[in-house]
């Protein structure tokens, strides 16, 4: 079942999909020959350094750039006021009124709204000079009170971030499916959970943001060589602001050192760099350093759930829940408030809940803007649901495994329509859970736990995390946030061609950051064309000039295996058709007599009659007079395909629709050992069972599972972004933000199930983000180790001190954070809590 052993069988041509084809990317990366954003260099370039606010909230009284400009080697300084003058309009806002009134420019104007907000940018001859000059820009601030709590920010008397909006509420809506009030009234048990908090953290890609931006005065074209992972979204936002049309705002990327959604958020800096380039008349090279990245690149969503009420029947059926959610967007809306709907792709998580109500408020706070960090918005909701299931089991005495299996969407239920009209395509959650539990030896550990008892100073906990990775978004869900938005559907483009000498070339609209697109796209195309995968060359990186993109192009949101590869497959099929028909002409046979093997076309019944790809290319490119007239127009050997998933526009009023095409699952299980004296958590066993439908390259899938697991464990135990009451970020570098290391990470056992998706051309499902299962599993394991008197695990981040407090919460008589009301034969209602 596990794919941890390398394949030993030689690769079979025509059957690459499904095999562990070794990566073509490796050769250059292993020798340090990758080309990353900071490796790009342009003649006459200057180096840029941003001047950032030390205050979380302040008025900009004045900016004096004279001392900076006096430094020898400084080319230019750009302030927010100047940037505003140079812009046509502020950045496009996704939010409806009144948050749609937010005026954000590439640099802060009049006010700064978070610790790290950029107020100016300096261009100089060397990196060091740019940094020195940035220190010489004199900014006078008038500090203002900061608001750092997402719930407090919604209050009428909270400090206001954007005056013209008149509120810090960026979005509010109530999602209401089924009838939760009826369910709560008629349930046998109601479990009320006071407060659950999902913390702020980030995948912190090892490579920070970077770009070389050149506003070329000769052609009035802006080229952006960067590692932005959603370049067309960036273009659509900054183009109108800069007054540059799409066809003169040209993005390209190369190798990207990880992105995880964070590199969607670099468009404001890129816009500032474009203006700086225009002002200075030079290319601008920007290297973001780690501290700047932690302060300003973007954080994952922080979400608070208040007054969660869960309706449970005597037999363990969970009818549903209601909650009040507050999400923290930070100082500006970058991609938010889309997160306010994205979570609803998995509104019931892995379960068959029928009644769900979420009162959702998104607030602006004096913190770094939120960006779609790996698992974007679903992570937080899936964690809520797993906490609900875990706490219900714990409080009502149900076996956590049985309770989950009973409430899971069952294998026979697929395709399963959720309360809001999403369709779960396929899966086998109960079996996934069984495999995960077997891998960790759950029964044996349950026995050990019982034997250990109390008094040894250690506690054993067994935890489960069930999660879905919804992939291939329907962007029409943006209309649920703002009905005015002209967005819907999704898609990706690919271009497969024969080149002059018959070489097979593929261009993609994607911006891979380690997801092995060059290898997997070659597998798909090679299978369609019947060639060796080594014959297929996939261009590294993204280049707008290849004309292979749609507005949704990029690499994000667990969709490449579906959208990117379906596009590649479609383009390859078009190309194959052309090749076969040209071969049929050349070999004077019928098209259905032609077969392709290793780059040569043969007449099946007479293999002496053959023409290689080089001959096909010759007919079209350099020898086309031999083709009859009617064929000359028909073939180009340049085949472009856009894969468009079968979406409809969702219903904004009912907040319903099919919001994502595919649903991969990851079921994780773990065993932890807690040191009662210190709260330290050691992970003794860890297993992840993944189901992403048909796997194109199993080893690559497994690598993604490992990676998502480690990042989730990092967030669960080590990694957090926290602000003090003055809005100062406490973890502004890797010195304080402990990125999980090889020594912290346990062995991760993996297994796979393949439940092909009926909705995709290749049966694959997008995967990669994971769904935060480690966060759910660790919380569940800690909960399992706690006693009935202890508090519930209510925070997604559990460093040692928090665990230490939890372990001793019962003996200290602290509030448990949960109240259970039970109906006894419909008469008395009993309540059990610790307050």
């Amino acid at each position, binding site marked *: 079942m596990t794919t941890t052993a390398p394949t030993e069988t030689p690769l079979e041509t025509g059957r690459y999909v499904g095999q562990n084809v070794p990566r073509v990317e490796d050769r250059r990366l292993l020798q340090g020959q990758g080309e990353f954003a900071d490796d790009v260099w342009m003649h006459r370039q200057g180096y840029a350094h941003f001047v950032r606010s030390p205050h979380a909230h302040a008025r900009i009284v004045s900016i004096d750039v004279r001392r900076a400009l006096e430094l020898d080697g400084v080319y230019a300084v750009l302030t927010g006021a100047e940037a505003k003058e140079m812009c046509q309009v502020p950045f496009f806002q996704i939010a409806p009124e009144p948050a749609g009134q937010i005026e954000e420019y590439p640099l802060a104007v009049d006010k700064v709204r978070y610790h790290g907000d950029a107020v100016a940018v300096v261009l100089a001859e060397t*990196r*060091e000079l740019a*940094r*020195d000059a940035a*220190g010489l820009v004199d900014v006078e601030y008038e500090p203002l009170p900061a608001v750092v709590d997402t719930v407090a920010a919604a209050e009428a008397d909270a400090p206001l971030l954007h005056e013209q909006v008149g509120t810090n509420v960026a979005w509010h809506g109530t999602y209401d499916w089924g009838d939760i009030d009826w369910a709560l009234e008629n349930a046998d048990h109601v479990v009320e959970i006071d407060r659950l908090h999902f913390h702020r953290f980030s995948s912190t890609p090892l490579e920070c943001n970077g770009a070389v931006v050149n506003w070329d005065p000769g052609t009035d074209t802006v080229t952006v060589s960067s590692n932005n992972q959603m370049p067309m979204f960036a273009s659509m936002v900054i183009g109108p602001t800069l007054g540059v049309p799409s066809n003169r705002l040209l993005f390209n990327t190369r190798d990207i050192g990880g992105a995880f959604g964070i590199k969607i958020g670099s468009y404001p800096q890129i816009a500032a760099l474009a203006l700086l380039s225009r002002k200075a008349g030079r290319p601008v090279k920007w290297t973001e*350093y*780690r*501290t700047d990245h932690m302060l300003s690149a973007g954080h994952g969503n922080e979400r608070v759930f208040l007054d969660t009420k869960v309706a449970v029947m005597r037999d363990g059926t969970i009818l549903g829940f209601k909650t009040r959610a507050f999400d923290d967007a930070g100082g500006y809306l970058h991609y938010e408030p889309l997160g306010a709907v994205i979570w609803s792709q998995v509104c019931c998580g892995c379960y068959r809940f029928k009644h769900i109500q979420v009162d959702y408020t998104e607030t602006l706070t004096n913190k770094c803007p939120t960006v779609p960090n790996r698992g974007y918005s679903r992570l937080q909701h899936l964690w809520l649901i797993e906490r609900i299931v875990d706490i219900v089991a714990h409080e009502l005495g149900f076996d956590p495994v049985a309770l989950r299996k009973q409430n899971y969407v069952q294998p026979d239920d697929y395709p399963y329509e959720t309360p809001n009209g999403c369709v779960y395509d396929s899966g086998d959650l109960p079996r996934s859970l069984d495999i995960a539990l077997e891998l960790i030896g759950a029964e044996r550990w349950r026995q050990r736990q019982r034997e250990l008892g109390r008094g040894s100073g250690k506690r054993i906990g067994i935890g489960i995390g069930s999660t879905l990775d919804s992939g291939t978004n329907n962007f029409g869900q943006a209309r649920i946030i703002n009905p005015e938005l002209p967005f819907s559907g999704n898609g990706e483009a690919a271009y497969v061609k024969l080149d002059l000498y018959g070489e097979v070339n593929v261009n993609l609209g994607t911006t891979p950051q380690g997801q092995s697109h060059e290898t997997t796209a070659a597998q798909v195309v090679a299978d369609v064309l019947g060639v060796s995968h080594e014959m297929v060359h996939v261009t590294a990186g993204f280049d707008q000039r290849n004309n292979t993109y749609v507005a949704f192009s990029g690499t994000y949101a667990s969709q490449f295996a579906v959208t990117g590869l379906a596009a590649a497959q479609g383009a390859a099929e078009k190309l194959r058709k052309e090749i076969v028909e040209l071969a049929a002409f050349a070999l004077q046979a019928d098209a259905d007599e032609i077969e392709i093997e290793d780059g040569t076309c043969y007449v099946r019944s007479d293999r002496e009659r053959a023409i290689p790809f080089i001959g096909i290319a010759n007919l079209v490119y350099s020898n086309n007079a031999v083709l009859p007239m009617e064929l000359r127009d028909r073939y180009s050997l340049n085949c472009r395909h856009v894969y468009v998933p079968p979406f409809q526009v969702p219903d904004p009023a009912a907040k319903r629709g099919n919001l994502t095409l595919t649903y991969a699952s990851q079921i994780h299980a773990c065993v932890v050992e807690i040191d009662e*004296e*210190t709260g*330290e958590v050691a992970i003794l066993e860890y297993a992840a069972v993944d189901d992403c439908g048909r796997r194109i390259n199993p080893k690559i899938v497994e690598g993604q599972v490992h990676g998502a697991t480690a990042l989730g464990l990092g967030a669960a135990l*080590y990694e*957090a972004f*926290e602000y003090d009451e003055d809005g100062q970020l*406490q*973890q502004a570098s890797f*010195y*304080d933000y*402990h990125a*999980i*290391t090889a*020594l*912290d990470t346990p062995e991760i056992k993996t297994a796979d199930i393949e439940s092909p998706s009926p909705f995709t051309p290749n049966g694959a499902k997008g995967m990669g983000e994971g769904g935060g299962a480690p966060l759910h599993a660790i919380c569940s394991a800690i909960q399992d180790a706690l006693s009935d008197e202890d508090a519930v695990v209510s925070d997604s981040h559990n*460093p*040692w*001190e928090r665990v*230490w407090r939890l372990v001793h919460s019962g003996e200290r008589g602290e509030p448990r954070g949960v109240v259970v009301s039970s109906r006894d034969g419909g008469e008395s209602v009993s309540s059990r809590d610790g307050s």
Partner: protein
Amino acid sequence: MLLESVAYARPESVAEALQALGATDGAAPLAGGQSLVNVLKHRVAQVELLVDISRLEELRRIEAGADGSLEIGACVTYDELDRSEEVRASHPLLAEVAGHIEDQQIRCRGTIGGNCCLSDPTNNLPPLVVALDATMVIESSAGRREVPAREFFHGYFSTAVGEGELLRSIRIPPLGAGAGAGYSTVAVGADSKAIARAAAVVRANGTIEEARVVLACVSPAPLRHAGMEEALRGSEPTADAVSHAAQRIGDDLEPLGDVHGSAEYRRAMARVVARRAVLQAIGKGGSERG
């Protein structure tokens, strides 16, 4: 990330180094640089001149005395401590602690002198050298002087080393018959920044005759806890007695709270690590060589 303008010099002897340090205001010695370069990157210190002492042979020796003592040059790296036969023989705990400082890259360059002179409350070696009752040998153009480790550390970046002076070496006496050393840490992650830490040396012969219990992370400098040491002296070397003695650690401490731990947690952990370090020291007392 990018340093301010600074001057660099590389003397060829300790005497030259002292001269360079004394001649310029804002001169600082540069050894492994594993802390100082970070400080410079974040532009939080005014350093005008870096005096590179990392290659000075005089500062890189490990000399074992016939009596089991060790004299360790200030520029000996953590990696060299970990792999030194002399250190492993006479002070295996020092080798072990050094071998777990952060990571291999830092261990290949970071030095015992730098670790001590930076005097960050979360550093690994200051509490250990205090527990081992080391002597810090300081050199200036005027000559050498010796400062007991327990008086050497004042606070963050502040030690007994003054202007125009250099830490030359650290002399660690033998543990002595019946004595053992222990060390316990609660850290953010494996081999990572300490939240609470204690080092202890205990000599027992039926009862505890001598105890040195040093707490780190709870005060600007490593703190020998007189209360716990007093409670240990004369007691039986048992787990109960040690737990009882550890109760002396309490509100007398005023640790700082930060993102890694509140003051309350650090105080509670100080008790835990002190207890564990002492138990470890007792456990090793029998087998340690004098």
